[in-house]
């Protein structure tokens, strides 16, 4: 079959909502786009552990500590699913991690902002996870099978996190004056970066058309962003808080909320590596990887030794 024929069959499957599976023929660009997107998504989960991990030792109650720790752990799990999904496309986890550490691969810019108070844990759950979910719900129907299936698992946990985040803000919003101020302050700081999570405006976005055609994406950045704004405007009322945008206003005609202009200058700066924590985040990941090298080497060496000698009955399990 000619490449042209293969491409036609491929597109037909896409059009008929048949999932593409690892061993099937796919265009190189489709493979590459998926690798880029899935690995970027995986990296975001892993780097995303850092801003929240920052508050585990200081969580204000044992219950909150447990919730936070479990949440950050879930993110590690999501990272794992996603690395596995990307591996089905032929790229090793080690290679993906190297690309992250060299700066070649990206991760979501939102994690380059610092977590300054406890309320940030709630704001991240509500806004950041909230924004992520809209994207992820869409991705549950993405055309590449392993990615779509990973997303289904992830989405469930993620919306649980979002509810927990919102609930945690709700407690603050009903708390002392200091807690209320902390809550509002966190919303103020995380609102705009959350809107940026959907990426550049459609008019500025490259790759977007092709991704829509391949059903890797099914909604545009601006559509998702609008959906997010509409959702948050309602939810913030339950908190008795406000969103930091004087231009937020119901537009009867559009049936959506209008909102102010994003600071695209800030957006591109953070993407380019100039956010408040880009350097710290990458250094933390590199450090963990470097300091873990001897552990990985030892585990490999031990596994090798085990292969050489037949297991004695008195193994590690017998000791327990």
């Amino acid at each position: 079959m000619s490449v042209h024929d293969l491409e036609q069959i491929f597109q037909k499957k896409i059009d008929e909502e048949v999932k593409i599976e690892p061993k099937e023929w796919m265009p190189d660009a489709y493979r590459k786009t998926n690798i880029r997107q899935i690995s970027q998504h995986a990296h975001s989960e892993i780097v995303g552990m850092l801003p929240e991990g920052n508050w585990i030792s200081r969580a204000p109650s044992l219950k909150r500590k447990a919730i936070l720790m479990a949440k950050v752990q879930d993110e590690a799990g999501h990272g794992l699913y996603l690395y596995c999904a990307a591996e089905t496309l032929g790229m090793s986890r080690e290679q993906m991690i190297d690309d992250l550490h060299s700066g070649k691969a990206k991760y979501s810019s939102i994690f380059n902002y610092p977590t300054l108070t406890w309320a940030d844990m709630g704001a991240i759950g509500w806004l950041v996870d909230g924004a992520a979910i809209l994207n992820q719900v869409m991705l549950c129907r993405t055309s590449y099978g392993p990615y779509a299936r990973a997303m289904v698992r992830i989405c469930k946990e993620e919306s649980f996190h979002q509810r927990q985040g919102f609930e945690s803000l709700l407690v603050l919003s009903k708390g002392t004056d200091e807690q209320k101020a902390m809550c509002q302050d966190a919303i103020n700081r995380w609102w705009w970066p959350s809107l940026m999570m959907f990426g550049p405006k459609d008019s500025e976005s490259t790759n977007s058309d092709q991704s829509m055609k391949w059903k890797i994406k099914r909604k545009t950045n601006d559509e998702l962003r609008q959906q997010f704004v509409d959702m948050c405007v309602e939810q913030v009322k339950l908190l008795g808080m406000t969103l930091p945008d004087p231009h937020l206003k119901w537009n009867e005609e559009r049936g959506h909320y209008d909102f102010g202009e994003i600071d695209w200058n800030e957006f591109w700066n953070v993407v380019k590596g100039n956010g408040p924590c880009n350097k710290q985040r990458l250094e933390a990941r590199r450090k963990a990887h470097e300091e873990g090298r001897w552990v990985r080497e030892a585990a490999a060496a031990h596994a090798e030794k085990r292969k050489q000698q037949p297991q004695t009955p008195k193994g590690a399990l017998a000791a327990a």
Partner: protein
Amino acid sequence: MSASLIDYTLHLADTTLILSQRNSEWCGHGPILEQDIAITNISLDLLGQSRNFYQYAATIMNNGSTEDSLAYLRTEREFKNLLLVELESGDWGQSILRQFLYSQFQHLLFQQLQQTKDEQLAAIAAKAIKETTYHLRWSSEWVIRLGDGTDESHKRMLHAIDELWRYTGELFEAADYETAMGIDLASIKQTWTEKVTAVFDEAKLPVPENVFMQSGGKKGVHTEQLGYILTELQYLQRTYPGAKW
């Protein structure tokens, strides 16, 4: 008896909490993603256990204490955790070895506690023992892997033993409240030593001899580390007294 029960329950609560706090430092910084998840799991289990113990202690105390007031509003000298669990985490080898030394102890202790007359303690122990079995298996495997891995990992494990071994004596040095509770640490010590020796043997690691043992944690005399742990742990509760979270 009630005072001893409270003290003993707090000792168990503090020990599991502080070890959870220490292990949670690895969350997001582990050497392998799968193991990052595993050690955080252990942290979560320990945290859950500590909450059970604190809640039970609060019930017996019956003076308005809660799991949070007990964890967040007691001072360095009131904490009764084992010294072993408050030490700096060190590298992965040291964290693993600590977990193994403690899990082996906890596993034997909780088997005994399951039989204790105090029904609540027995129930908490019974519930925790499944988790503990997993912690023990996981940490044993890692001790063996690292002890019998590369030259470097072996050397690091020797260093970890050097750092930690002198804090294992306290596990078996009965505080008054343990004696009052009828905990038989002597029998645990014997089995613990056998089991640890078996794993060390397989890991090609030496079991230290004639090491002078440090103690004090059970009585509230800690290392200088605990103070720093508590400044972080308790920061928000101390800063916003009375707030609900």
